[in-house]
C-alpha cells in the first residue's frame, strides 16, 4: 500500500532546485491543493523568470512562461479569457514580484483580480547567482551588496503583504513559511484557501512563503533554516494580513 505518493498534479520529473531549497516543498503543496480541489483540468499556471522559471515543467496542468515580473498581467488575461472555466495561479519570486513586476502585482491586487499568487520570498535573486533583492534584509551580504545592504544607499526591504493590505482591493493576504512540519501544514492551509477563494469568485489571494536559498546565502540547508528563523521571520512576521470575507462573516 502506498502511504505517501507524489501528488497527481506534480509532474514525474526531477526538479533542478538546489538541495535544501524550499521551492520543492511549495511546489508539492500547490500540487496537493490542486489535487484535493479536483481542479487540475481547469487550472493554468503562470511561471515567472527566476529560479522557478521552469515550473512549467513541474506541474501537470497547462502552464505559461511569462516575461520577468509580468505574470499577474498574463494571469489577468488568462482569467478574463474565460472566467468561469479557468483557475489561474502565478508562482513568483521576490525579484519578479516585488521589483520588476511591482506595478503588475499592485494593480492586480487593486483590481481584486480573481487569481491566486504564490510568492516565494527568499530575500535574494537565485537564478542569476545571488544578487540583492527588494526583500534582502538590511546588512545582508549579496553579490551586489558585498558590504551588506546599506539602507542609506539602496533603501529598505519591501514587506509585500503589509503594503498590499493597505489596498481596498485584495481579498486575502497571508504570510507563511515552510521551515518545520507545523508551518508546512499552515502554509498548505493558506494555499488551499487562496485557491478556494478563486473558485468562490472572491478575488485576489496572495500567499507569501518566507523561503530559504542555502546556495546563495552560502549556508548549509540546516543553517539556512536557522537563519530564516532568526533573521527573516522577525523582519517578515507570519500571519494573515487581509481576509475580507472573515471580516464580513
Amino acid at each position: 500500500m502506498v502511504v505517501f505518493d507524489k501528488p497527481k498534479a506534480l509532474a514525474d520529473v526531477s526538479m533542478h532546485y538546489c538541495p535544501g531549497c524550499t521551492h520543492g516543498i511549495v511546489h508539492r503543496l500547490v500540487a496537493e491543493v490542486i489535487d484535493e480541489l479536483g481542479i487540475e483540468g481547469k487550472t493554468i499556471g503562470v511561471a515567472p523568470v527566476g529560479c522557478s522559471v521552469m515550473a512549467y515543467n513541474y506541474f501537470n496542468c497547462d502552464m505559461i512562461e511569462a516575461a520577468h515580473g509580468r505574470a499577474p498581467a498574463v494571469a489577468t488575461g488568462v482569467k478574463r479569457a474565460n472566467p468561469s472555466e479557468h483557475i489561474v495561479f502565478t508562482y513568483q519570486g521576490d525579484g519578479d514580484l516585488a521589483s520588476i513586476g511591482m506595478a503588475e502585482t499592485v494593480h492586480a491586487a487593486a483590481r481584486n483580480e480573481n487569481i491566486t499568487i504564490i510568492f516565494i520570498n527568499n530575500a535574494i535573486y537565485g537564478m542569476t547567482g545571488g544578487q540583492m533583492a527588494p526583500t534582502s534584509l538590511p546588512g545582508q551580504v549579496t553579490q551586489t551588496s558585498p558590504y551588506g545592504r546599506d539602507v542609506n544607499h539602496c533603501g529598505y526591504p519591501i514587506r509585500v503583504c503589509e503594503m498590499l493590505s493597505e489596498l481596498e482591493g485584495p481579498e486575502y493576504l497571508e504570510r507563511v513559511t515552510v521551515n518545520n512540519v507545523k508551518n508546512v501544514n499552515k502554509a498548505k492551509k493558506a494555499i488551499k484557501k487562496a485557491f478556494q477563494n478563486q473558485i468562490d469568485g472572491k478575488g485576489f489571494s496572495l500567499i507569501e512563503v518566507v523561503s530559504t536559498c542555502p546556495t546563495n546565502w552560502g549556508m548549509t540547508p540546516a543553517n539556512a533554516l536557522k537563519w530564516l528563523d532568526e533573521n527573516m521571520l522577525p523582519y517578515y512576521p507570519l500571519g494573515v494580513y487581509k481576509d475580507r470575507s472573515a471580516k464580513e462573516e
Partner: protein
Amino acid sequence: MADKVLMKGNEAIAESAIIAGCRHYFGYPITPQTEIAAYMAKRMPKIGGTFLQAESEIAAINMVYGVSSAGYRVMTSSSSPGISLKGEGLSYMAGSDLPALVVNVQRGGPGLGGIQPSQSDYFQATKGGAHGDFKMIVLAPSSVQEMAALTVKGFELADKYRMTAMILADGTMGQMMEPVELDFEVKPSPEKPWATNGTKMQRTHNIVNSLSLVPEELERLNFERFERYAIVERDEVMYEEYLMDDAEICIAAFGIAARVAKNAIVKAREKGIKVGMIRPITLWPFPKAPFKKAAEQVKHIISVELSMGQMIEDVKLASECKVPVTLCNRAGGMIPTPEQVLAHIEDIYSGGAK
C-alpha cells in the same frame, strides 16, 4: 451591399475587431489612438467581451499574451512611445508563437516626440521591433475602409501563422472620417490545440513558452519560425499599383503619404509627366517583386515618407539599386503636401535631382 457608415479610422478598427470575433481588448491611454479604447470600453460590456484599461502598456501586452495563450482572438492598440513599451511583450509573443493584433497609430518621435502623424516607426515595425530574431506581419492602411478591412485580415493572418499582425497607421488615418462598409466575411478562428485553456484531464499539459536553454534546440526553433515567415513572404504580399503601365517615374508610398502622392501624380500627369505609384499594403512582407520589375521600366523612384527615410532602404534593396531612389519627406509630425511631391517629381523630370 451593406450600408456605408461614416466613421473615424480608429473607430473603424475597433468595430471591425469586434466583427472579426475579438472579445478581449487591453490598452493604455495615449494620443492619437484613444478612440479605439473608448469605443471598446463602450461596446465590449454590451456583447459579453472584456475591455480593461491596464496599468501600463507593458501590462496591456502581457494581458494580450495571456488571452492569446488561452486561444482567443485578442488585441491591443497604442501609439509610438507605447509600442516601444510593448516591445518586450511582442518579442515574447513571437518566441511563444502567439497570435494577436496590435495597432500602432503612429505619432512623431523619437522620445515623447509629438502627437501629430508620422511614419517613423517603420523600422521598428518591419525589422522586428524588439530583441531576438522575429517578424510581425505589418499592414499599412491608406483609407478608413482599409483600416477596417485590414483589421479583419490581420486577425486571420495572425491566427493562420501564429504571429503578431500589426496595423501600422498614423494619426491622420486614425482621426479622419470616411464612409465605410463593414460587411466582412470573417474566417473563424482555427482550432488551437496548443492553447493553455485547461487540460480537462483529456490531454497532456500544454506549455506556452519562449525559453529554450539548449542552443541547438533554440536554433532549430528559429529556423522553423523563419520557414513559416518564408511562406508569409511568398503568399501574403499585398500592394496597389497606380498608373504604373507607362510610368517613367515611380513613387513608393504607403498610408497617408500614398494619398498625398496620388494628388501629386494626377497633377504631374496633367503636365505630361508619366508618374505612377507602388503602394505597399503589407510593409512586411515587403512587396519586393513589383519594385524589382519597376526598376527595369522607370528611370527613377521617389520614396515619399513621413519620416527621415526608412522605407526607402527596402525600396533600394527591392529595386537592387538599378535606378536612383530619392527621398521626398517631412518628419516630426509634418505631412508632405502634394505641391512638395509635385515639385520633387518636376525636379527629377527636368534632370535636377541627383
